[in-house]
């Protein structure tokens, strides 16, 4: 994509933003970071996102563009709305009955908060890994193949075998590929039929990542994926995240500043009250942040 094209995309998304802006003050609030320009194509564009749980507002006018094939870290104190933001990107907030989302989120330029959006397709494209490993009480094989089987991409059932539609080799391939991508293959290749609950916490988390990869998403959302793990398992997950960024757009929530600094290309800082205070290159955020509040937070004076 040429530079001109890219500028055009930016211009378009800026235009979109101004048209959906509600008030002037919010526009000003965002001004300190909206200058952030990245070289790369915008994958997700969020503008003026407000989220309410009942009458409590959890996010206030958040706008940010997330470039593709990179790692974006979300940091901020507990309760500032990082998980809420993440869950807006694959509309998992729809599952919380009290949650109300206003604003716009586009995926490759397509609005995901409009009528007629197919949630199944959306979540196939935007995968998610949760804070606590949550493998199904099934075998490792069934865990990985779960998504593709349900989507009908792979079928090794009895009926499929009878009809000659079964594709067990494809399933083997897929399982192996996903497990390799998640750096788990070596550890579990000889016990694919064992129950996944028998794995260690770190292995379970990598299994969850593999399960997510098996659906072949474009974006992977991770909510503190390493918070329940020991340093060694954590560093495995971190390496994994960095390597995933070659092919996928990764958005990761973390409480660990060093982790954010190590693995991410750009960092967004949320502060209490649900506002996005600064969003920039990770280096800039950690070395020379614009906002005093961000600096205080990063240096541990506030938070």
């Amino acid at each position, binding site marked *: 994509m040429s530079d001109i094209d890219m500028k055009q995309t930016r211009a378009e998304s800026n235009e979109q933003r101004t048209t959906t802006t509600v008030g002037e003050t919010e526009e000003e609030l965002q001004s300190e970071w909206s200058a952030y320009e990245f070289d790369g194509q915008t994958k997700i564009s969020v503008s003026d996102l407000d989220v309410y749980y009942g009458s409590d507002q959890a996010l206030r006018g958040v706008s940010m563009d997330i470039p593709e094939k990179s790692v974006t870290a979300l940091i901020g104190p507990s309760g500032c709305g990082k998980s809420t933001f993440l869950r807006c990107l694959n509309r998992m907030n729809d*599952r919380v009955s009290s949650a109300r989302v206003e604003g716009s989120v586009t995926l490759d330029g397509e609005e995901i908060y409009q009528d007629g959006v197919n949630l199944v397709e*959306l979540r196939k494209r935007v*995968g998610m890994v949760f804070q606590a490993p949550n493998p*199904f009480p099934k075998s490792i094989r069934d865990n990985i193949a779960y998504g593709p089987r349900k989507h009908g991409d792979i079928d090794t059932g009895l009926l499929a075998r009878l009809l000659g539609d079964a594709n067990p080799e494809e399933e083997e391939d897929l399982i192996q590929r996903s497990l390799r991508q998640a750096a788990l293959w070596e550890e579990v290749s000889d016990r694919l039929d064992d129950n996944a609950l028998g794995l260690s916490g770190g292995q379970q988390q990598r299994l969850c990542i593999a399960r997510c990869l098996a*659906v072949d998403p474009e974006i992977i959302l991770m909510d503190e994926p390493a918070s329940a793990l020991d340093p060694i398992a954590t560093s495995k997950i971190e390496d994994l995240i960095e390597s995933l960024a070659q092919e996928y757009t990764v958005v990761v929530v973390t409480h660990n500043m060093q982790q954010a600094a190590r693995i991410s290309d750009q960092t967004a800082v949320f502060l209490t009250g649900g506002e996005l205070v600064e969003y920039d290159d990770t280096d800039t955020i950690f070395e020379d942040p614009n906002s005093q509040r961000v600096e205080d937070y990063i240096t541990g004076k506030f938070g």
Partner: protein
Amino acid sequence: MSTERQTQLVSTQSSIGSRATVAIIGLGLVVFAVSWLALFQWIGGETDVLGVGLFRLLGVCLLFIGVGTGACGFAARSGRIAATPRRSAGLLTGVLFGLLGFLVGGLSGAQTFGLGTAGWLVSAAGIGTAAATAAVFPREELGSTIPPSVFVTFVGAVITAGIIDAGWTWTPVDLSVTLIGPVVVPLLTIVASLIGVWSAAKAHSGFGARGRQSGAFLLISLSILGMLSVLVLLVGFIVVRGLDTVLTDAGVGIGSITVLNIQIPWVDVQIPFLMNVTQGLFVDVNGILPAIVGTLWLVIGAVVFAVPLGIGAAIFLTEYSESERFTQLVEIATNGLWSTPSIVFGLFGLTFLLPRISNNHRSLLGGQLVLGFMLLPLVVITSYEAIKAVPDEFRDASAALGVTRWQTIRSVVLPAAMPGIITGIILGVGRIAGETAPLLFVFPRSTFPSSVPNVLGSFEFSLAPPFVTNEALLSGGSALPYQLYASITSGHVPGQTFTVEQFGWGTAFVLLIVVLALYGIGITTRLYFQRKLQHE
């Protein structure tokens, strides 16, 4: 007191004290066990043991226990038994011994000394207060040994002295029951031995937290033992009485069946009671096959009707219902349905179902539906709980993979909830298989049926509505609990082989076996699903 608060890791209890308490506990347990045997009159109260009557011997044992626990208390008080007692034995102990004292005081005041109402009230209140005071105010080692000691010694003395013995009877005024010695004495010795054992166990562990733990543990173990023995007693009784009937004229021989002109040897088991119809021209040993088959079809029909409906309702409530209020409403309705008396279900079947399904005739289908209605609420309740217990993380994980709600329910939620759901079905089936009342109006055809319902062979298909009919489903029959009820109430059974009682016990035994077999099937299924969740 604080100077004595010295904790020791290794208890250096004097071996004499420890041996004494163990001996008291042992003696108490023996008294407890023997008393139960005496209560069921497996041992007569006058049986000669070591030259004295059994009851008197139990009394003497109680005297030993009573005096022993008291001695332990004093020994602990004077430091001869190592103990870490608390400030008091506690309010609960006080209340219990207060009530016990009230009872003893009242009864002996009114009965032994013939005091009037005012008199026995005064004596009851006086002794009750004294017992409560003695339990609460002294330090724990006295509070939890002296009142028990006095009570156990008192009971021991009364029995040893023969004031209450095997020949004793008492008909309380205003009550139409007569209490007799052979029942009252064992009951008294059971209570007294329990109290003695509890007290001695506390003394053995040196009171305090450990003592309370020992006392509680002993009582709890004795109650589980009691529960098991009730079970064994009940089942044993039925088996002993019933097996005889079931095995009448039974035999095993070598028979053969002919398939395509080839004779295949076959173990030929003959159990007439299980294989014959209840009444018939050529029946020499009257059996209960129609009732067995009837019960099985009833259960199958009820399960087929209620289980899908119940699980469906539970899925709706947990996974789809958005309205909290609606869920609560259904929950209340379900609980109401579950506690509805079963005879009401029968009446409903009679007046609502029978006219609509079988032309006002009693029918198997009617019985199946009525039992199904009874089973339904339990299936809903247990499935609802089981599905709700499936962690939301599974649902989130599945949704995040872009899997639809229904696929999630089918492949993640239901398998995880299956063991719980099946437990509910097992419990429900166990209950409906033994129900008589709801069937009375809708199912029985004759008291002693002469044919077995042939459900599978009775399907008839036609091109005109209703397309399929089944004569066997539309006619009544007999079921095991009903058969039992019918033969006992009618006062006679056909044929000369069995008396009414024998026939009844045989039926009860078979009913027990059928229910246990259904349990067995259920538990195996549950294990299968559990294993799938854990190992695969």
